[in-house]
């Protein structure tokens, strides 16, 4: 296939006036990413973003582990749309791949089977008294970041380039299954030619490395991670991806989905503990970042203000390569600069260079 095949899968992304809906998973693991998105798009680029605090989960994890029936999920989604309608906005900006897939699936289902839309409207009215209009534009927040990538590139403080060698950083991406496998036409590059993250990486100076399992699931598998007895599925699939990307010596992983950075980050720790294998260069892990964290670094945000201390795999090797200045002593501070202790060291979070000790193996 031609390198430009992704261009056949384009979508229209609104330029301004967003209505923001959050992700349950990210608020747990990478809350700094949502903050960075709002600061970059809303602050630095001056776009208008509104968030209604009364929006809730879309029920996505419950829906995809089958405890929540489709009719219920549809009605919760309809309530989110009702809040959007009441706000007077039309451009939904979704911070979660599961939610993005779900909103798209429900809109497509209403289109294919209009009786399901009628039923949903009835349920919503009966349960809440609310009514809704469908959004004019539904974008995942990475679509929005992709849309503004050139404007961000013009404000760049640190390019995705190794400051010592002058070479572009080598980046592998993971776009998350529900971004485009459900409805390839709504994802930039579709299901087979992922370009949403690659476009950002290239615009900011990095080099995207293709690897065989680029499209493989990160290993969440909903009920498979949620239940302890099933977690072998999760680690085995993440392991497959890590094994596939490691020979290409990536400097970091950029991810799209809320769960994916968590699995690609945490399972590196678990695999190191179980088998003694580390996938990064110099015996450490491969940093797995969200696209907002990457955008934040590129724009000169402080790494700890982005929440990079919440990663199990240390990001310092990447910061050093990019020439990002940081204060190591500020990494583990609580509110008002209070020191709150630090996590125990493990193989995948030891700083390379200063403390090249591999412990706990």
């Amino acid at each position, binding site marked *: 296939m031609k390198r430009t095949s992704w261009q056949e899968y384009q979508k229209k992304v609104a330029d301004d006036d967003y209505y923001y809906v959050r992700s349950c998973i990210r608020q747990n693991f990478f809350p700094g990413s949502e903050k960075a998105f709002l600061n970059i798009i809303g602050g630095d680029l001056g776009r208008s973003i509104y968030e209604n605090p009364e929006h*809730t989960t879309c029920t996505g994890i419950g829906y995809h582990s089958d405890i929540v*029936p489709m009719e*219920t999920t549809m009605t919760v989604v309809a309530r989110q749309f009702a809040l959007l309608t009441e706000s007077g906005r039309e451009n939904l900006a979704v911070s979660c791949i599961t939610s993005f897939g779900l909103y798209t699936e429900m809109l497509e289902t209403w289109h*294919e089977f209009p009786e399901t839309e009628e039923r949903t409207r009835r349920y919503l009215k009966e349960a809440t008294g609310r009514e809704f209009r469908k959004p004019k534009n539904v974008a995942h927040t990475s679509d929005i970041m992709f849309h503004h990538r050139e404007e961000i590139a013009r404000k760049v403080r640190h390019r995705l380039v190794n400051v010592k060698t002058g070479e572009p950083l080598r980046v592998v991406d993971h776009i998350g299954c529900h971004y485009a496998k*459900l409805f390839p036409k709504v994802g930039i590059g579709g299901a087979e030619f992922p370009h949403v993250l690659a476009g950002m990486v290239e615009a900011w100076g990095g080099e995207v490395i293709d690897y065989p399992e680029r499209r493989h699931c990160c290993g969440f598998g909903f009920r498979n991670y*949620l239940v302890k007895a099933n977690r072998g599925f999760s680690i*085995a699939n993440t392991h497959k991806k890590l094994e596939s990307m490691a020979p290409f010596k990536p400097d970091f992983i950029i991810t799209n989905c809320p769960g994916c950075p968590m699995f690609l980050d945490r399972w590196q720790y678990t695999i190191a503990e179980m088998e003694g294998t580390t996938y990064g260069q110099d015996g450490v892990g491969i940093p797995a970042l969200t696209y907002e964290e990457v955008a934040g670094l590129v724009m000169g945000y402080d790494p700890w203000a982005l929440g990079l201390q919440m990663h199990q795999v240390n990001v310092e090797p990447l910061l050093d390569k990019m020439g990002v200045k940081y204060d190591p002593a500020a990494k583990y501070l609580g*509110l008002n600069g209070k020191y709150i202790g630090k996590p125990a060291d493990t193989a995948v979070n030891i700083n390379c260079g200063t403390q090249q000790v591999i412990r706990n193996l």
Partner: protein
Amino acid sequence: MGKYFDRLMEDVRMREGLHSCMNCGVCTGLCPAAEFYDYDPRQVVNTVQMRDDEEIEKLLKSDALWYCGECMSCRPRCPRGNTPGYVIQALRKISQEDGFFAESEKGRQQLVIKRVIGGSILSEGYCLYPKLVSPELHPEQGPVWAWIHENDTQIYPQFSPNYRKAGPGPFRKISEATMDEIRRIFEVSGGAKMFAAIEEHSEQKAREMGFAGANDSYIEMIYTHDSGTHTQR
């Protein structure tokens, strides 16, 4: 013949997800669950399209119904435009309505998901929240997560103006008025009925298995027990 098939066809996901399968096996070839479990989505789809009630009922009671991770990787690549993942969602719905899920080790796990994720949706308005992912239940999360978990009130407010309080932001407190709306949606649209069916059939099964009910010991068992019979030999 066709009793279950007709009922399945009432689910729009079946109408969208199964046209006619030619048993090519592409879905099985790319499926992350088939790679590690003794599992074949092609066979699931074929069993359903053959409309044999007895075979479908066997499937509804089996572990095979519960391996799929709903990644939907099979959807864009099936040459017939089928979505085995959708077929599985429709089957799982019926398995829970009729109580067949409680007949298999993997199916029984639905109760723990209902209590943890379902409980969180109805009480907090989120599928999950930081305190739910405890390091004891999630040792694989590692020491950084344990540090975050222990210091949540020092860490999350750095990223949220309203950690567990009213107002916008991550892990804000969602108002009681909104939570009432969500609970009413569950009542009106069938979510509450599904939760009740999962509880009721689990309670019955737990007693059959010698537990005093679907209590903490039963939950501990379904959450952790692995008979070791699920992976490929």
